[in-house]
Structures are given as C-alpha cells and as structure tokens.
C-alpha cells in the first residue's frame, strides 16, 4: 500500500478519489450519475456502488470517462478544481444578475371569466383595482435599482390592455429614464388579445414589445375554460391573433396553455390547435393551486400522475411531428434540456436554486405593494400576505435585502432541503417555497407527498430516458430545441 493513502481508497489496481456526484435509478436497468455541475453518465444499476467501493478498473475506458467527466480524480484535490469551480459559477450565474423579471400588475380588472383564474380577477368596470400613477413611478424607480443589466418589464393583469394608457405611460417613462441607466430592457404584455386594435399593435411593433397570450387548445377546450362576459372567447381570440399576426412578426407573439382536467384527455388536439394557429412551440403547463383554480376544484383538480401521463403523450406526439418534418418545441422540455445538455443556467424562475423569488422576479402590484413572485400576489388575493415584501414606496434595500426577503429566501435552496439535498436531479430542478407553503403548509415542504417534486422528477427522468433511448431521433430533435 502506498504510504499516506488510506486503504479504503485503493481500487483493484490503482487509486482514485471521489468527486461530488449524485445518482438515481431511471429505469429497471439503468442509473444516472450526475455531478455537481450537471454532467451526467448513464450506467448499469450498481455502478455508483462500484465506484464508491473502488471496484472500477483504472485501466478501463470507463475509468477514463469518470475522470474526464469529474466523477472521480486521481488526486485528492483535482488538478482541474478551478475549472470545476468555474463551471459551478456559470451554472449559478443567474444569481449575479439578481432580479431580471419585473412584473407590473397595472390592473386586476379583466374582461374574461375563466374558472381557473389564478390571480382572482375583478370586474372590468371596477377601477379601484388599477395601479395609481404615483405607484407606477415608484415601481419604475425600484426596477432601475436592480443590478441586472438586462431587464424584462412584463405587464400582467387582470387584462392589462384595459389600461393601455398606463402601459404606454410606463414604457415612455422607462425609455426616458433609461437614457441615464442604459439597461437592456425587454417589454412583454400578457394579454388575452381581445382588446387589441391598430393603435396598440403599432405601439407594440414600434417598441419591440413581445405579446404573450393564452390559448388553451381547440375551440371546445378553450371555450370551456375561457369565457367572456358576453360568451365564449375562442373566436375573438383567434380573430385577434390573426389580426395581430398581420402587424407583428409571429416570433413576437407567444401563447401559453393551462392544463385543466378536461385538457388531460386531449394532448394531441391541443398541439394541433397551436400548429393551426401558426405557433411552433407550446408550454405544457399544469394548473397552479391559486385563486379561482383552487376554488373550482371540480374542473381544475387532478392527480399529478395524470398530468405527467398527459405530458408524456404530448411529448411523444411532438417528437413524432418533428420526425415528420414539423419543427415544434415543447418549452418546458427545452428548458430542462438546456440544463442537462449545456453548461449554462436558464432564466426560468421555477427551475432555479436558489429559488427565483426576488432573485429572479418581483411583482409590483396594483395594490401598492411589492411581492416576491407572481404566485405571491395570487396568494395575497386570498388574504395571505406571507410573501409580501413591503410597500412600493419603501426603500429598495429594505424590500430586496430586508428581513422579509431573508425569511423568504431561507428555504429556497435545494442544496439544503430534505429530500432534495441528495437528489440526483437537483442540478436540473428548482426550489419552489411558495408552492410548498400553499400545498404542504410550510416553505420547506415534504418531498414524498410533493406534487412539484413528483412532476419534476418524472419529467426529468422521462427526458433522460428518451435521450438515452434515442430510437426516434430524440437526441437530434432535442438538440435542435436548445
């Protein structure tokens, strides 16, 4: 035995040291090893145990693979430690940027009556639920204090086009102030589109504003979910969409769907409706347990297992379409693929650790308060202000780095959460303290019964199995999505 090297580190014919990694079974035969920076190896079950017990032949190709992928090292402190640290820093570089997404809820009024409305919209005539001009000014001042060089200013509602004059006012003020701050600013309006007109679309085009709308699928599904006070909304949305497409490039318009209980049975029809309406991507989004969605359980509550099945059928169908020459992307899969297949982080706040609350997003609400996320203001409409950071008129440091912000951030790191700290998928997943709080009673959460955990583990594992299997060109298709 070499002097100074503990016996337990000796392999069959050499020595090696472990580097941090985690492992998980992904099917009956295979397990995945994932290191601290997200590099992975898919191996036979029992491989992790062999590595740990020093049963890997140092002359084998697999030994070389483990070394080059940072799972083991020939030295106690690997020579490429700095490189590994840089990779780690890159994965976490979203922290450096701090708050990039600034949501402005200029009104809670809406001209729709969706049964799953998670923000608990108000009657379209009731102007008490509009943000005051003074608070718009103060919110913009706060937004400019963020260290992030790139900012997304997103207008949500209610239906923000009910107060288009305030959107215009906000953007003009931001443009004026940005001559001093010199930040890169993207604008997004989240709208049901039914109020668009030539003036609005021209303004969107002139200011490079991205439009995000809601389309739940074909007419029968969309109209079941999304009603206007004067009847179904599908026709008016599609007409508005066609009108908008004539004025604005299609890549400046995107749509989101919400999966209701009814939608679970129609994955292919939903995807087909997106293609028919000219979209080349879809975000298959499970319903969130906030606002009216939590109250109207008969239409909106379902087991997460059913959503995962829906997701898998939809993804299979999308892969089939791609193989037939139709370029079409599932956005959630694309986000996870970026985490699996590239060294870079993603900006999607639900898949980050530390969590995207405050770090990635804040909401300036019509009520004059700042919230830690979109879900935080949804919760406030139910009378729970646990994630309210303070008044829009408060000091930036007190709001973003104060006691409340610290309290909210405390359970926002997967690295320190029970059940997550040793989960192999940690580096591909994200912390969601508010979801834990809403569904399980506290921000720590309990992973064995967590729908968020089950959904993400199932989907990530499914994507990895598709990559590993690759029999339907999944590798090529997936790489074209990122």
């Amino acid at each position, binding site marked *: 035995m070499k002097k100074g090297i503990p016996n337990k580190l000796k392999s069959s014919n050499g020595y090696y040291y472990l580097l941090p990694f*985690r492992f998980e079974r992904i099917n009956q035969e295979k397990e995945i090893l994932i290191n*601290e920076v997200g590099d992975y190896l898919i191996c036979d079950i029992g491989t992790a145990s062999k590595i*740990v017990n020093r049963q890997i032949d140092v002359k084998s190709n697999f030994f070389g693979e483990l070394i080059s992928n940072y799972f083991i090292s020939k030295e106690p402190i690997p020579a490429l430690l*700095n490189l590994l640290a*840089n990779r780690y820093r890159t994965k976490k570089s979203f922290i450096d940027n701090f708050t990039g997404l600034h949501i402005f809820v200029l009104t809670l009024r809406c001209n729709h009556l969706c049964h799953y409305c998670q923000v608990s919209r108000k009657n379209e005539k009731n102007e008490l639920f509009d943000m005051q001009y003074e608070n718009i000014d103060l919110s913009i001042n706060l937004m400019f204090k963020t260290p992030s060089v790139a900012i997304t200013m997103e207008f949500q509602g209610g239906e923000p086009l009910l107060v288009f004059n305030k959107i215009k006012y906000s953007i003009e003020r931001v443009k004026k102030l940005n001559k001093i701050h010199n930040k890169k600013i993207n604008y997004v309006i989240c709208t049901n589109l039914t109020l668009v007109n030539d003036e609005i679309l021209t303004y969107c085009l002139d200011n490079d504003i991205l439009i995000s709308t809601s389309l739940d699928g074909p007419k029968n599904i969309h109209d079941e979910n999304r009603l206007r006070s004067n009847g179904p909304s599908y026709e008016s949305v599609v007409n508005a969409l066609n009108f908008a497409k004539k004025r604005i490039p299609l890549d400046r318009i995107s749509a989101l769907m919400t999966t209701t209980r009814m939608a679970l049975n129609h994955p292919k029809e939903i995807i087909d409706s997106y293609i028919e309406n000219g979209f080349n991507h879809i975000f298959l989004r499970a319903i969130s347990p906030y606002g009216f969605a939590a109250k109207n359980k008969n239409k909106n509550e379902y087991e997460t297992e059913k959503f995962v099945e829906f997701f898998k059928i939809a993804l299979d169908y999308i892969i089939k379409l791609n193989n037939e020459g139709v370029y079409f992307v599932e956005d959630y899969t694309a986000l996870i693929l970026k985490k699996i297949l590239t060294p870079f982080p993603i900006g999607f706040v639900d898949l980050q650790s530390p969590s995207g609350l405050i770090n990635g997003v804040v909401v300036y609400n019509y009520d004059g308060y700042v919230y830690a996320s979109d879900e935080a203001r949804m919760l406030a409409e139910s009378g729970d202000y646990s994630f309210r950071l303070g008044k829009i008129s408060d000091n930036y440091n007190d709001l973003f780095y104060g006691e409340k912000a610290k309290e909210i951030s405390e359970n926002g790191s997967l690295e320190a959460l029970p059940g997550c700290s040793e989960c192999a998928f940690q580096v591909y997943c994200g912390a969601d303290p508010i979801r834990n709080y809403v569904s399980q009673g506290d921000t720590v959460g309990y992973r*064995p*019964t967590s729908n968020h955990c089950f959904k993400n583990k199932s989907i990530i594992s499914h994507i990895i199995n598709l990559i590993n299997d690759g029999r339907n060109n999944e590798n090529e298709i997936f790489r074209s999505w990122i």
Partner: protein
Amino acid sequence: MITYSKERNLITCLVDSSIYNMDIIFKCFYWYGKLFSIEICKKEDFVEILIEKKEGIIDEVMFNKLRLKIKQDLIDFKTRDIVTKETKSVRELIIAKAFSNLSDEEEDIIFTSPVDR
C-alpha cells in the same frame, strides 16, 4: 433483519448501526412517509424501525416487495452517504472558489476540457 407481523399490520426492521448510521436511516425512511407511518428507535447496537401503513393493510405481497426495496434503498443511501462525506471538503472548495473573486487568468480557463490542458 426485516420482519412482518400480520396481526399488528406492522413491519419491523432491525438495522445494524455499525453499518448504517442515523443519517442514512433517516434519509432512507424519509421517502416512505407518503404511505407509511415510520417510527425510528435507537437501541444499543442496532436501530429499530417500525413501519405501519397509514391506510389499509400490509399483505404478504406488499411485504415481500417492501423488504427488497428497503434493503436496496439502505444500500443506495449508504452509497450516497459515503459520497457526501468523502467529498465534503472538495465540494466546499468548489463552491468557495466558484464564488470568490478569481483573477482574470483563472477566469480565462472557463470551459477548457481536460484534453486541451
């Protein structure tokens, strides 16, 4: 040793604490909490784990499946525990270096592959 009492609707595991420490046992049985009520008692040189189904009964088929799963899970969590403890210092070093102010020279090596070195 894993035994099953049909009368008491209870599975009892006796785990050698010289092989499986409390960290391993807690992390392993944490995941059984969805369906089962778990009680962990430290004895002199072993740990006793009482597993009771929250709803319904544990039949012979379920017991046999659980017995295999528990054995495998204990080994997996022991393996994870070894990795976590053996790599603690390296992990701390990686994180410390990742968030320290590196010199420009060090920053330049980002994404260099081992074969390029």
